[in-house]
Protein backbone atom coordinates (compact mmCIF):
# COMPACT_ATOMS: atom_id res chain seq x y z
CA UNK A 1 0.00 0.00 0.00
CA UNK A 2 3.13 2.11 0.04
CA UNK A 3 2.87 5.61 1.36
CA UNK A 4 -0.87 5.68 1.13
CA UNK A 5 -2.55 6.81 4.22
CA UNK A 6 -5.91 5.34 5.04
CA UNK A 7 -5.33 5.88 8.72
CA UNK A 8 -8.43 5.71 10.84
CA UNK A 9 -10.75 5.19 7.90
CA UNK A 10 -13.47 2.60 8.26
CA UNK A 11 -13.43 0.43 5.16
CA UNK A 12 -16.01 -2.28 4.56
CA UNK A 13 -14.77 -5.35 2.69
CA UNK A 14 -17.26 -7.76 1.10
CA UNK A 15 -15.62 -10.81 -0.47
CA UNK A 16 -16.66 -14.45 -0.24
CA UNK A 17 -13.31 -16.05 -0.99
CA UNK A 18 -11.45 -16.25 2.31
CA UNK A 19 -7.97 -16.12 0.85
CA UNK A 20 -8.72 -12.98 -1.15
CA UNK A 21 -10.67 -11.35 1.69
CA UNK A 22 -7.81 -11.95 4.07
CA UNK A 23 -5.25 -10.47 1.70
CA UNK A 24 -7.37 -7.36 1.16
CA UNK A 25 -7.83 -7.03 4.89
CA UNK A 26 -4.10 -7.34 5.48
CA UNK A 27 -3.34 -4.74 2.81
CA UNK A 28 -5.88 -2.23 4.13
CA UNK A 29 -4.88 -2.73 7.73
CA UNK A 30 -1.29 -2.18 6.67
CA UNK A 31 -2.29 1.24 5.33
CA UNK A 32 -3.87 2.14 8.63
CA UNK A 33 -7.50 1.47 7.81
CA UNK A 34 -10.00 -0.14 10.15
CA UNK A 35 -11.48 -3.03 8.20
CA UNK A 36 -15.17 -3.70 8.68
CA UNK A 37 -15.73 -7.36 7.90
CA UNK A 38 -14.66 -8.90 5.71
CA UNK A 39 -18.18 -10.15 5.01
CA UNK A 40 -18.67 -13.28 2.89
CA UNK A 41 -22.40 -12.86 2.21
CA UNK A 42 -25.03 -10.20 1.47
CA UNK A 43 -26.63 -10.91 4.86
CA UNK A 44 -23.37 -10.53 6.75
CA UNK A 45 -22.57 -7.30 4.89
CA UNK A 46 -26.03 -5.90 5.60
CA UNK A 47 -25.63 -6.66 9.30
CA UNK A 48 -22.25 -4.94 9.43
CA UNK A 49 -23.57 -1.85 7.64
CA UNK A 50 -26.54 -1.64 9.99
CA UNK A 51 -24.25 -1.81 13.02
CA UNK A 52 -21.58 0.62 11.79
CA UNK A 53 -22.19 4.30 12.53
CA UNK A 54 -19.37 5.41 10.24
CA UNK A 55 -18.31 3.82 6.96
CA UNK A 56 -15.82 5.83 4.91
CA UNK A 57 -15.57 3.50 1.91
CA UNK A 58 -16.13 -0.03 0.70
CA UNK A 59 -14.79 -2.68 -1.63
CA UNK A 60 -17.44 -5.08 -2.92
CA UNK A 61 -16.96 -8.42 -4.66
CA UNK A 62 -19.88 -8.73 -7.08
CA UNK A 63 -20.69 -12.42 -6.80
CA UNK A 64 -21.04 -13.81 -3.29
CA UNK A 65 -21.44 -17.60 -3.54
CA UNK A 66 -24.08 -17.07 -6.21
CA UNK A 67 -25.77 -13.98 -4.76
CA UNK A 68 -25.20 -10.61 -6.37
CA UNK A 69 -23.90 -7.84 -4.13
CA UNK A 70 -26.08 -5.10 -5.66
CA UNK A 71 -28.49 -4.86 -2.70
CA UNK A 72 -25.52 -3.98 -0.52
CA UNK A 73 -24.38 -1.43 -3.11
CA UNK A 74 -27.82 0.22 -3.02
CA UNK A 75 -27.68 0.57 0.77
CA UNK A 76 -24.21 2.13 0.53
CA UNK A 77 -25.40 4.52 -2.20
CA UNK A 78 -28.28 5.59 0.03
CA UNK A 79 -25.80 6.27 2.84
CA UNK A 80 -23.56 8.13 0.39
CA UNK A 81 -20.67 5.80 1.10
CA UNK A 82 -18.19 5.71 -1.81
CA UNK A 83 -17.35 2.19 -2.95
CA UNK A 84 -15.67 0.17 -5.71
CA UNK A 85 -16.38 -3.24 -7.20
CA UNK A 86 -13.80 -6.01 -7.26
CA UNK A 87 -14.69 -8.55 -9.88
CA UNK A 88 -13.90 -10.81 -12.77
CA UNK A 89 -17.09 -9.75 -14.55
CA UNK A 90 -17.12 -7.36 -17.44
CA UNK A 91 -19.05 -4.11 -17.31
CA UNK A 92 -22.06 -5.61 -19.13
CA UNK A 93 -22.86 -7.73 -16.06
CA UNK A 94 -23.18 -4.66 -13.86
CA UNK A 95 -26.59 -2.89 -13.67
CA UNK A 96 -26.86 0.47 -15.39
CA UNK A 97 -27.31 2.38 -12.12
CA UNK A 98 -23.76 1.41 -11.12
CA UNK A 99 -22.20 2.37 -14.45
CA UNK A 100 -20.07 5.07 -12.83
CA UNK A 101 -18.86 2.89 -9.96
CA UNK A 102 -15.10 2.19 -10.29
CA UNK A 103 -14.18 -1.41 -10.88
CA UNK A 104 -11.07 -3.32 -9.84
CA UNK A 105 -10.38 -6.39 -11.89
CA UNK A 106 -9.26 -9.51 -10.13
CA UNK A 107 -6.58 -10.33 -9.30
CA UNK A 108 -6.39 -7.05 -7.40
CA UNK A 109 -3.12 -5.20 -7.08
CA UNK A 110 -2.76 -3.94 -3.53
CA UNK A 111 -1.36 -0.58 -4.70
CA UNK A 112 -4.27 -0.01 -7.05
CA UNK A 113 -6.73 -0.81 -4.29
CA UNK A 114 -5.22 1.73 -1.92
CA UNK A 115 -4.98 4.44 -4.56
CA UNK A 116 -8.56 3.91 -5.68
CA UNK A 117 -10.00 3.93 -2.17
CA UNK A 118 -7.93 6.99 -1.29
CA UNK A 119 -9.21 8.83 -4.37
CA UNK A 120 -12.80 7.77 -3.73
CA UNK A 121 -12.74 8.92 -0.15
CA UNK A 122 -10.90 12.09 -1.05
CA UNK A 123 -7.56 11.56 0.63
Amino acid at each position, binding site marked *: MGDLDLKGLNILVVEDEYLIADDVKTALSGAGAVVLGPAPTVDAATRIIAGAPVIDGALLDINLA*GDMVFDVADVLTARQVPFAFATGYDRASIPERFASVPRLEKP*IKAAELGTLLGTLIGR
Partner: protein
Amino acid sequence: MNRQADPAPDEKAKLLDENEQLRTALESSLEENMQLAEDRDRLRDRVVMLARELKLATTTFMPVRASSDQTLDLRELQQSQTEEELRVAFEELQVLAEELELANTGLQRANEDLEARVEARTREITRTNAELSRSELRFRTLVEGMPQLVWRAVGVAEWTWASPQWRAFTGQSLEESLGLGWLEAFHPDDRAAARGAWAEAHTRGGLVFEGRICHAGEGRYRHFHTRAAPVRSAEGRVLEWLGTSTDLDDILSLQARQAVLVGELQHRTRNLMAVMQAVMLRTIKGSQSLQDFQRQIDARMQALARVQGLLSRRDAGTRVAFDLLLREEVSAHVTLNAEGNGRQVSIEGPADIPLQSSLVQTFGLALHELMTNAVKYGALSTPSGMLRITWEERPTGRDGAPRLFVDWRESGVTNMPEPGARPRGSGYGRELIERALPYQLGAKTRYEFTPDGVHCTIEVDIPDRAEVLEKRHG
Protein backbone atom coordinates in the same frame (compact mmCIF):
# COMPACT_ATOMS: atom_id res chain seq x y z
CA MET B 1 -56.13 -26.09 -48.31
CA ASN B 2 -59.11 -24.01 -49.37
CA ARG B 3 -59.76 -22.49 -52.76
CA GLN B 4 -57.86 -19.34 -51.84
CA ALA B 5 -54.76 -21.36 -51.48
CA ASP B 6 -54.32 -22.17 -55.19
CA PRO B 7 -50.89 -21.10 -56.24
CA ALA B 8 -49.88 -18.88 -59.14
CA PRO B 9 -52.77 -16.43 -59.51
CA ASP B 10 -51.04 -14.90 -62.51
CA GLU B 11 -50.99 -18.18 -64.38
CA LYS B 12 -54.64 -18.68 -63.58
CA ALA B 13 -55.60 -15.25 -64.88
CA LYS B 14 -53.77 -15.97 -68.11
CA LEU B 15 -55.59 -19.27 -68.55
CA LEU B 16 -58.96 -17.66 -67.92
CA ASP B 17 -58.12 -15.01 -70.48
CA GLU B 18 -57.29 -17.56 -73.20
CA ASN B 19 -60.37 -19.58 -72.41
CA GLU B 20 -62.50 -16.49 -72.81
CA GLN B 21 -60.97 -15.86 -76.24
CA LEU B 22 -61.60 -19.44 -77.25
CA ARG B 23 -65.19 -19.23 -76.08
CA THR B 24 -65.75 -16.08 -78.14
CA ALA B 25 -64.26 -17.77 -81.19
CA LEU B 26 -66.44 -20.80 -80.63
CA GLU B 27 -69.57 -18.66 -80.32
CA SER B 28 -68.87 -16.69 -83.49
CA SER B 29 -68.13 -19.93 -85.34
CA LEU B 30 -71.44 -21.35 -84.18
CA GLU B 31 -73.20 -18.20 -85.31
CA GLU B 32 -71.52 -18.44 -88.71
CA ASN B 33 -72.45 -22.07 -88.82
CA MET B 34 -76.10 -21.27 -88.19
CA GLN B 35 -76.05 -18.54 -90.82
CA LEU B 36 -74.63 -20.95 -93.36
CA ALA B 37 -77.16 -23.61 -92.39
CA GLU B 38 -80.00 -21.08 -92.82
CA ASP B 39 -78.65 -20.10 -96.25
CA ARG B 40 -78.45 -23.72 -97.19
CA ASP B 41 -82.01 -24.38 -96.05
CA ARG B 42 -83.25 -21.36 -97.98
CA LEU B 43 -81.46 -22.59 -101.09
CA ARG B 44 -82.92 -26.07 -100.65
CA ASP B 45 -86.45 -24.63 -100.34
CA ARG B 46 -85.89 -22.56 -103.46
CA VAL B 47 -84.65 -25.60 -105.42
CA VAL B 48 -87.64 -27.64 -104.28
CA MET B 49 -90.02 -24.89 -105.32
CA LEU B 50 -88.37 -24.46 -108.72
CA ALA B 51 -88.44 -28.18 -109.33
CA ARG B 52 -92.15 -28.25 -108.50
CA GLU B 53 -92.79 -25.34 -110.91
CA LEU B 54 -90.82 -27.08 -113.64
CA LYS B 55 -92.79 -30.26 -113.25
CA LEU B 56 -96.09 -28.37 -113.34
CA ALA B 57 -95.03 -26.47 -116.44
CA THR B 58 -94.09 -29.64 -118.29
CA THR B 59 -97.37 -31.48 -117.54
CA THR B 60 -99.45 -28.42 -118.53
CA PHE B 61 -97.58 -28.08 -121.78
CA MET B 62 -97.87 -31.66 -123.05
CA PRO B 63 -101.74 -32.14 -123.27
CA VAL B 64 -102.21 -28.69 -124.67
CA ARG B 65 -99.92 -29.49 -127.50
CA ALA B 66 -101.76 -32.68 -128.28
CA SER B 67 -105.39 -31.53 -128.15
CA SER B 68 -105.60 -28.35 -130.19
CA ASP B 69 -103.72 -26.40 -132.81
CA GLN B 70 -105.73 -23.19 -132.51
CA THR B 71 -104.17 -22.07 -129.43
CA LEU B 72 -100.75 -23.21 -130.58
CA ASP B 73 -99.29 -19.79 -131.00
CA LEU B 74 -100.43 -18.77 -127.58
CA ARG B 75 -99.34 -22.01 -126.19
CA GLU B 76 -95.99 -21.79 -127.94
CA LEU B 77 -95.54 -18.35 -126.49
CA GLN B 78 -96.45 -19.63 -123.07
CA GLN B 79 -94.14 -22.53 -123.54
CA SER B 80 -91.22 -20.47 -124.60
CA GLN B 81 -91.83 -18.20 -121.62
CA THR B 82 -91.87 -21.14 -119.28
CA GLU B 83 -88.75 -22.56 -120.87
CA GLU B 84 -87.02 -19.28 -120.40
CA GLU B 85 -88.08 -19.19 -116.78
CA LEU B 86 -86.92 -22.73 -116.28
CA ARG B 87 -83.59 -22.01 -117.84
CA VAL B 88 -83.11 -19.01 -115.56
CA ALA B 89 -84.25 -21.08 -112.62
CA PHE B 90 -81.81 -23.84 -113.48
CA GLU B 91 -79.01 -21.39 -113.81
CA GLU B 92 -79.99 -19.87 -110.51
CA LEU B 93 -80.19 -23.32 -109.00
CA GLN B 94 -76.75 -24.11 -110.36
CA VAL B 95 -75.28 -20.97 -108.85
CA LEU B 96 -77.02 -21.68 -105.53
CA ALA B 97 -75.79 -25.26 -105.56
CA GLU B 98 -72.25 -24.05 -106.13
CA GLU B 99 -72.64 -21.52 -103.31
CA LEU B 100 -74.05 -24.22 -101.09
CA GLU B 101 -71.16 -26.48 -101.90
CA LEU B 102 -68.75 -23.67 -101.15
CA ALA B 103 -70.51 -22.81 -97.88
CA ASN B 104 -70.52 -26.44 -96.82
CA THR B 105 -66.82 -26.81 -97.51
CA GLY B 106 -66.09 -23.59 -95.60
CA LEU B 107 -68.23 -24.72 -92.74
CA GLN B 108 -66.51 -28.06 -92.62
CA ARG B 109 -63.10 -26.43 -92.64
CA ALA B 110 -64.11 -24.00 -89.93
CA ASN B 111 -65.45 -26.84 -87.84
CA GLU B 112 -62.32 -28.91 -88.29
CA ASP B 113 -60.16 -25.94 -87.40
CA LEU B 114 -62.24 -25.22 -84.33
CA GLU B 115 -62.17 -28.84 -83.31
CA ALA B 116 -58.39 -28.91 -83.57
CA ARG B 117 -58.08 -25.75 -81.53
CA VAL B 118 -60.42 -27.01 -78.83
CA GLU B 119 -58.50 -30.27 -78.70
CA ALA B 120 -55.15 -28.51 -78.43
CA ARG B 121 -56.50 -26.16 -75.78
CA THR B 122 -57.97 -29.05 -73.81
CA ARG B 123 -54.63 -30.82 -73.89
CA GLU B 124 -52.87 -27.70 -72.70
CA ILE B 125 -55.39 -27.09 -69.92
CA THR B 126 -55.09 -30.69 -68.76
CA ARG B 127 -51.32 -30.38 -68.67
CA THR B 128 -51.41 -27.02 -66.86
CA ASN B 129 -53.92 -28.36 -64.37
CA ALA B 130 -51.71 -31.34 -63.64
CA GLU B 131 -48.76 -28.99 -63.28
CA LEU B 132 -50.74 -26.73 -60.98
CA SER B 133 -51.94 -29.54 -58.79
CA ARG B 134 -48.40 -30.92 -58.59
CA SER B 135 -47.10 -27.48 -57.66
CA GLU B 136 -49.91 -27.07 -55.16
CA LEU B 137 -49.06 -30.44 -53.64
CA ARG B 138 -45.42 -29.43 -53.40
CA PHE B 139 -46.41 -26.13 -51.80
CA ARG B 140 -48.68 -27.83 -49.29
CA THR B 141 -46.15 -30.52 -48.43
CA LEU B 142 -43.48 -27.86 -47.93
CA VAL B 143 -45.74 -25.63 -45.84
CA GLU B 144 -47.08 -28.42 -43.67
CA GLY B 145 -43.69 -30.06 -43.22
CA MET B 146 -41.65 -27.00 -42.24
CA PRO B 147 -41.20 -25.97 -38.59
CA GLN B 148 -42.28 -22.40 -39.34
CA LEU B 149 -45.84 -21.30 -38.92
CA VAL B 150 -46.99 -20.19 -42.37
CA TRP B 151 -49.82 -17.86 -43.22
CA ARG B 152 -51.24 -15.74 -46.02
CA ALA B 153 -52.69 -12.28 -45.85
CA VAL B 154 -54.17 -9.56 -48.03
CA GLY B 155 -54.33 -5.79 -47.59
CA VAL B 156 -52.93 -4.78 -44.21
CA ALA B 157 -52.56 -7.80 -41.94
CA GLU B 158 -55.83 -9.44 -43.04
CA TRP B 159 -55.07 -13.11 -42.82
CA THR B 160 -56.74 -15.34 -45.39
CA TRP B 161 -55.13 -18.60 -44.38
CA ALA B 162 -53.03 -20.14 -41.60
CA SER B 163 -51.05 -23.36 -41.84
CA PRO B 164 -52.01 -26.39 -39.72
CA GLN B 165 -48.89 -25.70 -37.62
CA TRP B 166 -50.22 -22.28 -36.67
CA ARG B 167 -53.48 -23.81 -35.61
CA ALA B 168 -51.75 -26.60 -33.67
CA PHE B 169 -49.33 -24.18 -31.96
CA THR B 170 -51.82 -21.48 -30.98
CA GLY B 171 -54.91 -23.61 -30.58
CA GLN B 172 -56.78 -21.20 -32.87
CA SER B 173 -59.16 -22.58 -35.48
CA LEU B 174 -58.66 -21.44 -39.06
CA GLU B 175 -61.67 -19.13 -38.73
CA GLU B 176 -60.33 -17.62 -35.49
CA SER B 177 -57.01 -16.82 -37.10
CA LEU B 178 -58.47 -15.10 -40.16
CA GLY B 179 -58.72 -11.33 -40.58
CA LEU B 180 -57.02 -9.81 -37.52
CA GLY B 181 -57.87 -12.82 -35.34
CA TRP B 182 -54.23 -14.01 -35.37
CA LEU B 183 -53.26 -10.98 -33.28
CA GLU B 184 -54.99 -12.60 -30.30
CA ALA B 185 -52.32 -15.31 -30.22
CA PHE B 186 -49.60 -12.68 -29.76
CA HIS B 187 -48.55 -11.35 -26.36
CA PRO B 188 -50.62 -8.22 -25.55
CA ASP B 189 -47.39 -6.20 -25.18
CA ASP B 190 -46.21 -7.25 -28.65
CA ARG B 191 -49.39 -6.51 -30.61
CA ALA B 192 -48.57 -2.83 -31.14
CA ALA B 193 -45.22 -3.80 -32.66
CA ALA B 194 -46.97 -6.26 -34.98
CA ARG B 195 -49.44 -3.62 -36.12
CA GLY B 196 -46.65 -1.08 -36.53
CA ALA B 197 -44.65 -3.45 -38.70
CA TRP B 198 -47.71 -4.08 -40.87
CA ALA B 199 -48.38 -0.36 -41.19
CA GLU B 200 -45.05 0.13 -42.94
CA ALA B 201 -44.89 -3.25 -44.71
CA HIS B 202 -46.21 -1.90 -48.02
CA THR B 203 -43.77 0.99 -48.21
CA ARG B 204 -40.89 -1.20 -47.06
CA GLY B 205 -41.85 -3.99 -49.43
CA GLY B 206 -41.63 -6.53 -46.63
CA LEU B 207 -42.75 -7.31 -43.12
CA VAL B 208 -40.39 -8.04 -40.21
CA PHE B 209 -41.06 -8.05 -36.48
CA GLU B 210 -40.32 -9.91 -33.26
CA GLY B 211 -43.10 -10.97 -30.95
CA ARG B 212 -44.14 -13.63 -28.49
CA ILE B 213 -46.78 -16.13 -29.52
CA CYS B 214 -48.71 -18.14 -26.97
CA HIS B 215 -48.08 -21.87 -27.13
CA ALA B 216 -51.36 -23.55 -26.34
CA GLY B 217 -49.66 -26.79 -25.30
CA GLU B 218 -47.10 -25.27 -22.94
CA GLY B 219 -49.44 -22.50 -21.80
CA ARG B 220 -46.68 -19.91 -22.17
CA TYR B 221 -45.41 -17.40 -24.69
CA ARG B 222 -42.45 -18.23 -26.90
CA HIS B 223 -40.33 -15.76 -28.84
CA PHE B 224 -40.96 -15.68 -32.57
CA HIS B 225 -39.44 -13.92 -35.54
CA THR B 226 -42.18 -13.05 -38.03
CA ARG B 227 -41.63 -11.98 -41.60
CA ALA B 228 -43.61 -11.82 -44.83
CA ALA B 229 -43.01 -10.96 -48.47
CA PRO B 230 -45.56 -9.68 -51.00
CA VAL B 231 -46.64 -11.89 -53.90
CA ARG B 232 -46.86 -9.58 -56.91
CA SER B 233 -48.61 -9.79 -60.28
CA ALA B 234 -46.63 -9.38 -63.51
CA GLU B 235 -47.52 -5.68 -63.34
CA GLY B 236 -46.10 -5.42 -59.82
CA ARG B 237 -49.42 -5.17 -58.02
CA VAL B 238 -49.40 -6.85 -54.56
CA LEU B 239 -51.76 -9.80 -54.85
CA GLU B 240 -51.22 -11.09 -51.31
CA TRP B 241 -48.62 -11.62 -48.57
CA LEU B 242 -46.91 -14.90 -47.75
CA GLY B 243 -45.59 -14.98 -44.20
CA THR B 244 -43.71 -17.17 -41.74
CA SER B 245 -43.28 -17.08 -37.99
CA THR B 246 -40.13 -18.80 -36.75
CA ASP B 247 -39.71 -20.03 -33.17
CA LEU B 248 -36.59 -18.38 -31.70
CA ASP B 249 -37.21 -19.38 -28.11
CA ASP B 250 -34.70 -22.24 -27.94
CA ILE B 251 -32.02 -20.22 -29.73
CA LEU B 252 -32.57 -17.23 -27.47
CA SER B 253 -32.38 -19.31 -24.30
CA LEU B 254 -29.25 -21.04 -25.64
CA GLN B 255 -27.74 -17.64 -26.33
CA ALA B 256 -28.62 -16.46 -22.84
CA ARG B 257 -27.15 -19.66 -21.41
CA GLN B 258 -24.01 -19.18 -23.44
CA ALA B 259 -23.67 -15.59 -22.23
CA VAL B 260 -24.03 -16.84 -18.65
CA LEU B 261 -21.40 -19.51 -19.26
CA VAL B 262 -18.96 -17.07 -20.82
CA GLY B 263 -19.45 -14.68 -17.89
CA GLU B 264 -19.08 -17.58 -15.47
CA LEU B 265 -15.88 -18.73 -17.13
CA GLN B 266 -14.42 -15.25 -17.02
CA HIS B 267 -15.42 -14.89 -13.39
CA ARG B 268 -13.96 -18.25 -12.41
CA THR B 269 -10.72 -17.64 -14.23
CA ARG B 270 -10.25 -14.25 -12.60
CA ASN B 271 -11.18 -15.68 -9.26
CA LEU B 272 -8.77 -18.57 -9.64
CA MET B 273 -6.00 -16.14 -10.48
CA ALA B 274 -6.84 -14.14 -7.37
CA VAL B 275 -6.75 -17.32 -5.27
CA MET B 276 -3.41 -18.30 -6.81
CA GLN B 277 -2.11 -14.85 -6.02
CA ALA B 278 -3.21 -15.28 -2.40
CA VAL B 279 -1.72 -18.79 -2.17
CA MET B 280 1.51 -17.46 -3.62
CA LEU B 281 1.72 -14.67 -1.02
CA ARG B 282 1.11 -17.15 1.82
CA THR B 283 3.70 -19.52 0.46
CA ILE B 284 6.29 -16.76 0.21
CA LYS B 285 5.62 -15.80 3.82
CA GLY B 286 5.88 -19.41 5.01
CA SER B 287 9.01 -20.33 3.05
CA GLN B 288 12.49 -20.51 4.53
CA SER B 289 14.26 -20.53 1.17
CA LEU B 290 13.60 -20.21 -2.51
CA GLN B 291 13.97 -23.97 -2.78
CA ASP B 292 11.43 -24.45 0.00
CA PHE B 293 9.10 -22.01 -1.77
CA GLN B 294 9.44 -23.83 -5.06
CA ARG B 295 8.61 -27.19 -3.50
CA GLN B 296 5.59 -25.86 -1.60
CA ILE B 297 4.15 -23.71 -4.38
CA ASP B 298 4.50 -26.61 -6.80
CA ALA B 299 2.49 -28.91 -4.51
CA ARG B 300 -0.19 -26.28 -3.94
CA MET B 301 -0.56 -25.45 -7.64
CA GLN B 302 -1.00 -29.16 -8.28
CA ALA B 303 -3.66 -29.36 -5.58
CA LEU B 304 -5.48 -26.41 -7.18
CA ALA B 305 -5.17 -28.06 -10.58
CA ARG B 306 -6.71 -31.29 -9.22
CA VAL B 307 -9.67 -29.33 -7.86
CA GLN B 308 -10.11 -27.50 -11.17
CA GLY B 309 -10.03 -30.85 -12.91
CA LEU B 310 -12.85 -32.13 -10.70
CA LEU B 311 -14.89 -28.96 -11.21
CA SER B 312 -14.53 -29.02 -14.98
CA ARG B 313 -15.00 -32.79 -15.43
CA ARG B 314 -18.35 -32.94 -13.64
CA ASP B 315 -21.52 -33.00 -15.72
CA ALA B 316 -23.30 -29.70 -16.27
CA GLY B 317 -25.52 -28.80 -13.34
CA THR B 318 -24.07 -31.39 -10.97
CA ARG B 319 -21.83 -30.95 -7.97
CA VAL B 320 -18.53 -32.41 -6.89
CA ALA B 321 -19.04 -35.21 -4.38
CA PHE B 322 -16.99 -35.18 -1.17
CA ASP B 323 -15.64 -38.74 -1.55
CA LEU B 324 -14.31 -37.86 -5.02
CA LEU B 325 -12.51 -34.75 -3.73
CA LEU B 326 -11.04 -36.63 -0.76
CA ARG B 327 -9.94 -39.67 -2.76
CA GLU B 328 -8.32 -37.42 -5.39
CA GLU B 329 -6.34 -35.55 -2.75
CA VAL B 330 -5.31 -38.57 -0.65
CA SER B 331 -4.34 -40.53 -3.79
CA ALA B 332 -1.96 -37.74 -4.75
CA HIS B 333 0.09 -38.64 -1.65
CA VAL B 334 -0.46 -42.37 -0.97
CA THR B 335 -1.74 -45.37 -2.86
CA LEU B 336 -5.32 -46.44 -2.11
CA ASN B 337 -7.11 -49.61 -3.19
CA ALA B 338 -10.73 -49.68 -4.43
CA GLU B 339 -12.05 -49.99 -0.87
CA GLY B 340 -10.22 -46.82 0.13
CA ASN B 341 -7.45 -48.50 2.10
CA GLY B 342 -3.75 -47.87 1.93
CA ARG B 343 -0.90 -49.22 4.00
CA GLN B 344 -1.43 -46.64 6.76
CA VAL B 345 -4.61 -45.02 5.53
CA SER B 346 -8.28 -45.91 5.55
CA ILE B 347 -11.10 -43.77 4.23
CA GLU B 348 -14.71 -44.72 4.76
CA GLY B 349 -18.06 -43.04 4.21
CA PRO B 350 -21.06 -42.79 1.89
CA ALA B 351 -20.47 -41.89 -1.74
CA ASP B 352 -22.01 -38.97 -3.63
CA ILE B 353 -22.53 -36.41 -0.88
CA PRO B 354 -22.53 -33.17 -2.88
CA LEU B 355 -20.43 -30.13 -1.96
CA GLN B 356 -21.24 -26.47 -2.47
CA SER B 357 -19.24 -25.54 -5.56
CA SER B 358 -17.85 -22.39 -3.96
CA LEU B 359 -16.44 -24.53 -1.18
CA VAL B 360 -14.71 -27.16 -3.33
CA GLN B 361 -11.57 -25.13 -4.01
CA THR B 362 -10.93 -24.13 -0.41
CA PHE B 363 -11.92 -27.57 0.85
CA GLY B 364 -9.52 -29.18 -1.62
CA LEU B 365 -6.70 -26.88 -0.53
CA ALA B 366 -7.45 -27.62 3.14
CA LEU B 367 -7.37 -31.39 2.56
CA HIS B 368 -4.11 -30.92 0.69
CA GLU B 369 -2.53 -29.11 3.62
CA LEU B 370 -3.78 -31.78 6.05
CA MET B 371 -2.30 -34.51 3.89
CA THR B 372 0.98 -32.62 3.46
CA ASN B 373 1.29 -32.18 7.21
CA ALA B 374 0.42 -35.85 7.82
CA VAL B 375 3.15 -36.90 5.40
CA LYS B 376 5.70 -34.45 6.82
CA TYR B 377 5.05 -34.50 10.55
CA GLY B 378 2.05 -36.72 11.29
CA ALA B 379 0.71 -40.23 10.88
CA LEU B 380 2.35 -40.85 7.53
CA SER B 381 5.78 -39.68 8.69
CA THR B 382 6.26 -42.66 10.99
CA PRO B 383 5.79 -46.40 10.37
CA SER B 384 3.63 -46.72 13.48
CA GLY B 385 1.21 -43.99 12.37
CA MET B 386 -2.31 -44.49 11.09
CA LEU B 387 -4.66 -42.05 9.31
CA ARG B 388 -8.35 -42.80 9.44
CA ILE B 389 -10.83 -40.54 7.67
CA THR B 390 -14.56 -41.23 8.13
CA TRP B 391 -17.59 -39.18 7.18
CA GLU B 392 -21.34 -39.35 7.42
CA GLU B 393 -24.51 -37.31 7.13
CA ARG B 394 -25.86 -35.84 10.35
CA PRO B 395 -29.20 -34.05 10.76
CA THR B 396 -27.57 -31.08 12.49
CA GLY B 397 -28.44 -28.36 9.96
CA ARG B 398 -31.25 -25.82 10.12
CA ASP B 399 -34.61 -27.58 10.64
CA GLY B 400 -32.82 -30.90 10.83
CA ALA B 401 -31.28 -30.55 7.36
CA PRO B 402 -28.43 -33.01 6.80
CA ARG B 403 -24.85 -31.81 7.12
CA LEU B 404 -21.66 -33.52 6.11
CA PHE B 405 -19.57 -34.50 9.12
CA VAL B 406 -15.93 -35.39 8.42
CA ASP B 407 -13.65 -36.90 11.03
CA TRP B 408 -9.90 -36.83 10.35
CA ARG B 409 -8.00 -38.77 12.95
CA GLU B 410 -4.29 -39.47 13.05
CA SER B 411 -2.87 -41.93 15.56
CA GLY B 412 0.41 -43.57 16.52
CA VAL B 413 2.27 -40.30 16.20
CA THR B 414 5.02 -39.65 18.71
CA ASN B 415 6.59 -36.27 19.42
CA MET B 416 3.31 -34.40 19.19
CA PRO B 417 3.57 -30.69 20.08
CA GLU B 418 1.97 -29.55 23.28
CA PRO B 419 -1.61 -28.44 22.90
CA GLY B 420 -1.62 -24.72 22.02
CA ALA B 421 1.95 -24.83 20.73
CA ARG B 422 2.94 -23.14 17.46
CA PRO B 423 2.09 -25.44 14.60
CA ARG B 424 4.84 -27.15 12.75
CA GLY B 425 5.00 -26.12 9.14
CA SER B 426 3.38 -22.93 7.91
CA GLY B 427 0.11 -23.26 9.80
CA TYR B 428 -1.56 -22.71 6.47
CA GLY B 429 -3.63 -25.92 6.60
CA ARG B 430 -4.85 -25.06 10.03
CA GLU B 431 -5.80 -21.54 8.91
CA LEU B 432 -7.78 -22.93 5.99
CA ILE B 433 -9.67 -25.30 8.25
CA GLU B 434 -10.19 -23.07 11.24
CA ARG B 435 -10.87 -19.82 9.37
CA ALA B 436 -11.43 -20.20 5.63
CA LEU B 437 -14.04 -22.98 5.74
CA PRO B 438 -16.17 -21.33 8.45
CA TYR B 439 -15.83 -17.96 6.69
CA GLN B 440 -16.95 -19.17 3.31
CA LEU B 441 -19.88 -21.40 4.08
CA GLY B 442 -20.60 -21.44 7.73
CA ALA B 443 -18.66 -24.65 8.28
CA LYS B 444 -18.06 -25.75 11.84
CA THR B 445 -14.52 -27.01 12.27
CA ARG B 446 -12.21 -28.19 14.99
CA TYR B 447 -8.48 -28.79 14.79
CA GLU B 448 -6.54 -30.13 17.72
CA PHE B 449 -3.38 -31.92 18.70
CA THR B 450 -4.13 -35.06 20.72
CA PRO B 451 -1.31 -36.99 22.43
CA ASP B 452 -0.95 -39.43 19.51
CA GLY B 453 -1.86 -37.27 16.51
CA VAL B 454 -3.97 -34.57 14.87
CA HIS B 455 -7.73 -34.76 15.25
CA CYS B 456 -9.78 -32.57 12.95
CA THR B 457 -13.51 -32.40 12.35
CA ILE B 458 -15.35 -30.48 9.63
CA GLU B 459 -19.08 -30.01 9.42
CA VAL B 460 -20.68 -28.31 6.37
CA ASP B 461 -24.13 -27.88 4.84
CA ILE B 462 -25.09 -30.28 2.09
CA PRO B 463 -26.54 -28.31 -0.84
CA ASP B 464 -29.30 -29.42 -3.17
CA ARG B 465 -27.95 -31.98 -5.55
CA ALA B 466 -28.63 -29.96 -8.68
CA GLU B 467 -26.79 -26.72 -9.16
CA VAL B 468 -28.69 -23.83 -10.66
CA LEU B 469 -26.57 -22.52 -13.48
CA GLU B 470 -27.54 -18.86 -13.08
CA LYS B 471 -26.57 -18.86 -9.43
CA ARG B 472 -22.91 -18.28 -9.95
CA HIS B 473 -20.21 -19.19 -7.56
CA GLY B 474 -18.10 -16.29 -6.37
